[in-house]
């Protein structure tokens, strides 16, 4: 039986949701599922990683002020030498996940596939699924050379389901000093207070686009999101315009969300946006332009001005609460 490694990110001992999603996906293949983790509190994360299917956890330890990219990729490369290569390495497409996967691909000289939204095994090869052209087409790809295949997988591609696994064996591994490539130092970490859920984990997402007209009007989006205990998202257009930070962006170059309801306000529905939200269970769209593409996928479409509809909607919801 082969093995699959999952790069398991964690913060304060709590595994990232995407890592639990990948462990769940890895369990679907006939292979031992093993996790590679790092950082302060990593050993606390082990029990939960086991619950989701990891039978062994390799812990590269606290990296201090180092960024994960250089040292974790070096740790995985030496783990491949000592333990043998896994059939596949699954990495969440996160800020740090991309850094680790990119550096590892150079270190072990293997290509990688990113923006993966599904994974299957056909005739012994892993075949990845990718949503292209705004999610209107599905592309399947595979590696042709020697493994291990590095698959960088978008969050929300799989549902995270616990398997009731026991506490796994934790093996400490070394995260080597990589010299000059490890020159960057994290001097301070700022955690912004968030009143609601994380964007890609929220059951309700309210997003704003160009139709808001001005950066100040994004406050309406935040207020509605808060009232519905949801998260505030954004189209690429207003992120590019500097109205809101990149971390709010929904779409191809941002986050994928799959909430119970997605409320698109003043978003026309460029293909690059729709690929990130079209899997929402319910979609409500408000846009002035009746020919906006977003209406083609909306369960409820309101042709109207967000500046008129949103204040009334906010008042009506407040009145109910």
């Amino acid at each position, binding site marked *: 039986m082969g093995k699959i490694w999952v790069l398991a990110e964690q913060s304060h001992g709590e595994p990232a949701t995407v890592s639990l999603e990948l462990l769940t996906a890895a369990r679907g293949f006939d292979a031992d599922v093993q996790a590679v983790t790092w950082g302060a509190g990593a050993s606390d994360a082990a029990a939960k990683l086991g619950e989701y299917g990891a039978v062994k956890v390799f812990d590269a330890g606290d990296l201090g002020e180092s*960024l994960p990219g250089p040292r974790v990729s070096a740790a995985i490369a030496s783990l491949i030498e000592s333990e043998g290569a896994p059939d596949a390495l699954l990495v969440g497409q996160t800020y740090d996940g991309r850094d680790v996967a990119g550096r590892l691909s150079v270190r072990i000289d293997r*290509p990688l596939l*990113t923006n993966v939204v599904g994974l299957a095994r*056909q005739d012994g090869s892993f075949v990845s699924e990718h949503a292209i052209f705004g999610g209107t087409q599905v592309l399947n790809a595979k*590696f042709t050379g020697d493994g291990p295949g590095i698959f960088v997988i978008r969050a929300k591609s799989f549902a995270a389901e616990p398997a009731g696994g026991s506490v796994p064996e934790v093996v400490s591994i070394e995260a080597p000093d990589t010299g000059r490539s490890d020159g960057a130092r994290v001097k*301070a970490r700022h955690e912004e207070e968030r009143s609601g859920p994380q964007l890609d984990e929220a059951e309700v997402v309210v997003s704003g686009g160009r139709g808001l007209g001005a950066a100040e009007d994004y406050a309406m989006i935040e207020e509605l999101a808060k009232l519905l205990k949801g998260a505030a998202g954004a189209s690429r257009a207003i992120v590019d315009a500097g109205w809101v930070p*990149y971390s709010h962006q929904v779409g191809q170059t941002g986050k994928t969300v799959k909430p119970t309801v997605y409320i698109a306000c003043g978003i026309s529905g460029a293909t690059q946006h729709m690929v990130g939200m079209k899997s929402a269970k319910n979609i409500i769209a408000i846009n002035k332009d009746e020919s906006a593409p977003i209406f083609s996928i909306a*369960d409820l479409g309101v042709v109207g*001005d967000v500046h008129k509809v949103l204040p*009334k909607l906010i008042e009506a919801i407040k009145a109910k609460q």
Partner: protein
Amino acid sequence: MNVAVCVKQIPDPAGELSLDPSTNTLVREGKLILDDSDSYGVEMALQLAESAGGGDVTLISMAPNGETSGLRTALAMGAAGAVLVSDDALAGSDALGTARVLAAVVQRIQPDLVLAATESTDGYTGTTPVQLAELLGWPSVTFAKHVEVTPDSVAVRRQTEAGYDEVTSPLPAVVTVTAGVVEPRYPSFKGIMAARSKPVEELTVSDLGIDVSRVGWAGARQEVVSVQAAEERQSGEIVTDEGDAHEKIVGYLERIKVL
């Protein structure tokens, strides 16, 4: 301070995009434009060079058919020159192959800092800059939302899930810039005229001493298995707001038990 900016010239994303049926890769014939995502890196580079008291901003690009139209846009913004790698042998290159080419150019021009976007708009693999850094043996700081330089270091506010980290790195380094963090300048008429005569050095794979088997189709070591139409999502009810559309939305939210 000499800054190099990796810029991609892409098919206009607002136009009809298609896959070449024989290769299943994006059709890149016809005019290419500067990827909007890269305009932030170009602007950032111009500002950093200026704040450091001078230095050149050089563009690095890899594109088919000697394409320079996107480069001219960035040159018109104020970049001093460009290095373009164009070679039929590069068709089909993946992110790693592309990073090899960019690394060879960086080694040739030896900038103090390399900037890039977090990902391109057309391929959006999102790993080329960090692969470039690893090939060079350089540090990298990805997802920068604010960048400052001193003569021998760069200080970055790096986007994280929870907020941001303050990261410093010695130079040379690779930094990726998130969109929207600076306002790209519009090229002036004078800038556009000047851009026409700015130097664009065109190189091939052999000029850079790269083994052709490490780039292009052969280097990519991956293939498209199939492409099919995705399941379509149907549209539902569309109403025109007559002053009461908010009630419709409330009703809908109640039905799905969000309210």
